[in-house]
């Protein structure tokens, strides 16, 4: 362990590599987490199938790339639209009935059932194999080749940022965005003011699905996917949202990128087998600290 810390200190380019790498791919996680935060904040729905929707998007990109020869980056708008429609379908059939449930168990259970269904269907349709979609964009060599940035990751980063900014603008300035935010603040008042809540909810969920789809396209380009790896992404989005707090857009970005970078550095120092556990323990510590601080003020974390 000490050796590794020494390496990081004596050759900072490796530390830079780890951190930059984390920042770049963390943006993808942040995007997915943003979608989760959206439906959580607006509809109070916890989507256990978030990861599966991501993987679904990834499979679509993979299929479009290898079956139809469309470049992965160009598949992104297609996947976004496809997942948007998928989201609407899921909303109409399942999520619809879960609204207003004071019991989060029910939403968790329903989306969990959905996750299982999706996993099995994806396995049946796409096969259980590990797949990846390599757009072969080459690499960027900085500092005399000491820092290497894969262009795939760079491009993914910019796409994630672009989509994030687009979402931000959408939320702030478009009618639908404003309707969504109004509904999140006070559903009743929004209804009275003539906003079609049903449409707002459907749209919010569909937007989340689209975000997952885009995330999935990026995921399959940067890493590998298979039908059962969805939980990793679900869990990571939960962590990011909890760390950042609902409604904290910038917080989500920083949390997403921060966790990934931290993971890389931790993995480097103490070995890959403990990196996930360390991140989780960190999360618990932060939450407990927050809860203690809140209790001092006689509040609780809500």
């Amino acid at each position, binding site marked *: 362990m000490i050796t590794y810390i020494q390496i990081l200190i004596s050759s900072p380019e490796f530390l830079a590599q780890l951190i930059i790498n984390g920042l770049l791919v963390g943006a993808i996680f942040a995007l997915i987490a943003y979608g989760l935060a959206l439906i959580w904040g607006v509809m109070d729905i*916890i989507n256990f199938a978030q990861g599966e929707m991501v993987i679904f998007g990834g499979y679509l990109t993979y299929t479009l790339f290898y079956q139809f020869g469309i470049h992965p980056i160009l598949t992104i708008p297609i996947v976004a639209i496809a997942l948007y429609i998928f989201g609407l379908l899921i909303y109409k059939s*399942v999520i619809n*009935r*879960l609204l207003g*449930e004071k*019991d*989060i*168990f*029910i939403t*968790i*259970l*329903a989306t*969990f*059932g*959905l*996750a*299982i*269904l999706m*996993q*099995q*269907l994806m396995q*049946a349709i796409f096969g259980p194999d590990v797949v990846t979609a390599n757009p072969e964009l080459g690499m960027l060599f900085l500092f005399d080749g000491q820092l290497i940035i894969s262009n795939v990751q760079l491009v993914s980063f910019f796409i994630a940022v672009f989509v994030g900014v687009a979402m931000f603008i959408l939320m702030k300035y478009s009618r639908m965005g404003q309707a969504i935010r109004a509904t999140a603040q006070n559903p009743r008042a929004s209804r009275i003011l003539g906003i079609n809540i049903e449409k707002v909810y459907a749209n919010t969920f569909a937007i989340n699905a689209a975000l997952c789809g885009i995330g999935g396209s990026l995921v399959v380009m940067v890493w590998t996917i298979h039908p059962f790896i969805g*939980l990793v992404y679900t*869990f990571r989005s*939960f*962590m990011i949202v*909890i760390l950042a707090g609902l409604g904290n857009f910038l917080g989500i970005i920083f949390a997403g990128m921060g966790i990934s970078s931290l993971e890389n550095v931790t993995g480097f120092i103490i*070995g890959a*087998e*403990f990196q*996930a*556990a360390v991140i*989780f*323990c960190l*999360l*618990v510590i932060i*939450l*407990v600290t927050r*809860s*203690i601080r809140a*209790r001092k003020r006689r509040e*609780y*974390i*809500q």
Partner: protein
Amino acid sequence: MMKENKQNTLIWLGLAISAIVPLLLPNHITVLTYIWVMIILALTWDMLGGQTGYTSFGNILFFGVGMYVCAVVQRDMFSSGLERFERVSEIVVNLSVSEYFISLAIGTISGAIVAVILAIILGSGILGMRGHYFAICTLGLGHAAAEITSGIEYLGAGSGMVAPLYPSEFLMGKEVFYYYSFLLVAVATFFLFKKIYKSQFGLALNAIRDNENKAESMGIHTTQYKIAGWSISAFFLAIAGAGVGNVIGFIDPVEIAFSGPTFGVWMIVMAILGGKGTIWGPVLGAIILYSAKETFWTYLLGWDKVALGLLILIVVVYFPKGILGYFKDKKQLSDSVLSPKGEG
């Protein structure tokens, strides 16, 4: 719901059938044993989940802890000269009859104690949080435990451990022994929990579920009650884990001990499906869902998981209060409409 007498007769009838079932269906003993295991898992989950209103996704932690502690005790208690094995995961222990059962008993109890201590420590930290936050915090518990265990060589690391071989000289076969053991534990858990829920303690838990703020303001130290509830669950979960580790014979940190997909998730689903917050709900949910799972698997090979996912979705949409809740509602409705004594 039913008169006390009727319920009791039913319970005795059920127990009588359960006692002789191994003789009637000898090829299904292991499946039946698992039903008892699931009943224990569902009941313990429900104490915090249904009665107190705190969804925990991490109860599997205690299950795995019990499994590992018992396995380690069984391995180390009577055996010396284990150094001849190069790696922990390859150690297999042969015990005499008395050694086996003594180490099993001590192992199980040790596991339960460790689990309770763990519940108290962890609970003090995270049971202060409410609702969603607590739930998601517990989501990672099992996972983190699996990861950490995978890194510890003494516990077999990623390669797992092998449970000691059941002494073949003993007059009762392995399957039969564990069937009755789990039956006893499940029944004990059921009656104990029934008593608890009727007591002051149980009422306090329900108060926390109904409105934690009010409960707090009425002087109930909610966190202490929550920790106590979780500890009780942990105790029985560990016992279940210790037994299951021996039944399966092979302990793997990710696939078996702390496995969400195999055990962790189902305990929640069963309790909710049956009707959480009741004493019979989890029992019913466990029996029905596990039987359904096995039946689907036998007849719908390949599509059984899909059928299961669909089943969960259907029940959630049409029976959101679980099966017992559904019938309770119907009865309340008919009571109130038909009888003058019912609530109007």
